[in-house]
């Protein structure tokens, strides 16, 4: 088994077929990368959504506590 | 509520309905909605009348594209009318009632598909020789076109019912229904046009018609089963 091309420029050109081959590989790996990144992005979005909800719940709790305190002191 | 909206099954018949009853009821309903029968036909004719305007009036050119075009338009006409197949029954609750009957939903769904074919596919097939004349289809293709449309549209009605049942609870199912059902229509279209093309070219076309018949038999046996399941899923019970 040996490298089939005499130089790196030759490897890129591939006797004029290089453009087709390289575009195919580029699109394939770009699509695969997009597939791999999608869950990661979604997960972060879910995380942010959860944090937002938790903040809202905490704020409500705080407000209720303050009101209770006002009512008790009165 | 006008009397048109009341399903005969709800208003009358106490006894457990059999297939013939379903068929009679569906026919009755189809006759009440004559516009639903006329619209696909008008669509079919008007689009095919646009064709020479787009392609040019040369008889040879039109004769070349005629089998494929007539078939594609028949397919679209069937597809467009499919949307209303279960809609009114879903909205007035009849569909829910049908699922509660002691006998399988299969027969009710089969009757609906059959009537849908009688209301759209059959008139399309009957009308096809007229359009074939207008598009200059060679004379050898007429009988084959008629027979292939007769069987093919029946398969299309049966298969399309699955899509109609899956999308019945969706608010605007039109394009979604087309998207779902189109790929499933491919074999029928291929063998339908293939048969007509073979007939025009002077070859034997009985093999293609036999395959269309086989597709129809398979669709009649299996598609209503899938449609029945889809109805239950859409009703969520």
């Amino acid at each position, binding site marked *: 088994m040996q490298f089939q091309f005499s130089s790196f420029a030759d490897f890129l050109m591939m006797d004029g077929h290089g453009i087709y081959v390289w575009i*195919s590989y580029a699109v394939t790996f770009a699509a695969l990368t997009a597939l791999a990144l999608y869950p990661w992005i979604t997960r972060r979005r879910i995380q942010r959504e959860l944090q937002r909800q938790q903040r809202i719940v905490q704020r409500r709790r705080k407000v209720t506590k303050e009101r209770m305190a006002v009512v008790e002191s009165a | 509520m006008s009397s048109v909206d009341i399903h005969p099954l709800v208003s009358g018949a106490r006894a457990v309905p059999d297939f013939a009853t379903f068929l009679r009821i569906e026919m009755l309903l189809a006759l009440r909605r004559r516009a639903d029968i006329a619209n696909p036909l008008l669509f079919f004719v008007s689009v095919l009348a646009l064709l020479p305007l787009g392609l040019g009036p040369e008889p040879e050119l039109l004769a070349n594209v005629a089998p494929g075009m007539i078939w594609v338009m028949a397919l679209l006409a069937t597809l467009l009318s499919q949307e209303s197949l279960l809609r009114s029954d879903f909205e007035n609750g009849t569909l829910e009632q049908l699922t509660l009957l002691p006998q399988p939903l299969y027969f009710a769904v089969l009757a609906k598909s059959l009537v849908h074919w009688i209301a759209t596919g059959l008139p399309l097939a009957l009308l096809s020789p007229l359009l074939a004349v207008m598009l200059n289809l060679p004379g050898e293709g007429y009988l084959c076109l008629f027979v292939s449309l007769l069987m093919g549209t029946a398969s299309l009605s049966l298969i399309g019912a699955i899509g109609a049942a899956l999308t019945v609870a969706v608010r605007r199912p039109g394009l979604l229904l087309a998207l*779902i059902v189109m790929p499933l229509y491919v074999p029928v279209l291929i063998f339908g046009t293939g048969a007509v093309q073979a007939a025009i070219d002077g070859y034997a076309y009985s093999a293609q018609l036999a395959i269309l018949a086989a597709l129809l038999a398979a669709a009649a046996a299996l598609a209503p089963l899938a449609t029945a399941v889809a109805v239950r899923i859409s009703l969520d019970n």
Partner: protein
Amino acid sequence: MAWQWFHRLGSPRWFYQKTGAWLPWLALASAVLLIVGSIWGLGFAPEDAKQGNSYRIIFVHVPAAFLALAGYYLMAVSGAIGLIWKMKLAFAVMRAAAPIGAVLTFIALFTGAIWGKPTWGAYWVWDARITSMLILLFLYIGVMALSQAVNREQVADRACALLALVGTVNIPIIYKSVDWWFTLHQPATLRLTEASSIDPSMFYPLLTVIIGFYCMYAWTLLTHTRTLLLRREIRTKWVQQVLTEGK
């Protein structure tokens, strides 16, 4: 006892925890195999006598086409499992498999079209395989569109499962009919891949990439399913724990 694992599989939490350990290994395996296989195929496999260097597209085209079809069956089978055993996890796998399969089908179509240019002189030829692939893409898109259109998650799951099953019954018929249609209209062109045996010097890199694609598919399917489960089970304690701890 033997069925215990099967019942456990129904639990999203168990699945999430179990598969977490597999992910790094799958990612490593797919990265190594894909990189090694691609370099092997691009630089070290010999040139094809007839097609020259353009045949090197085979090393991404064939695995993608393989998995695009296998992915549809996987989607349909998990849908069927969901329908029969009412298993939440199976539906999640089915929903995750649809976009992945669609992307793989797109890759197969795109690379096939690019490959067609130097081989046939045209990007798009209505060849039997290409046409079947296009219809497969439409089948995937149909499932995805249906899942988007139905509001209630539970109904959407079951509707998509049924549609996938109907598609599975149809796929062989569609393939046969398209094949027949192609022989009817076949122009004088050379076939892209013949049934002839492939030389070992080309076969081994191809095998490497195919296994790499399988690992990649498994990894992607797992990560997509896991994220889907997190979104669906967001109200449960374990999901909130997982998300806040950032594990």
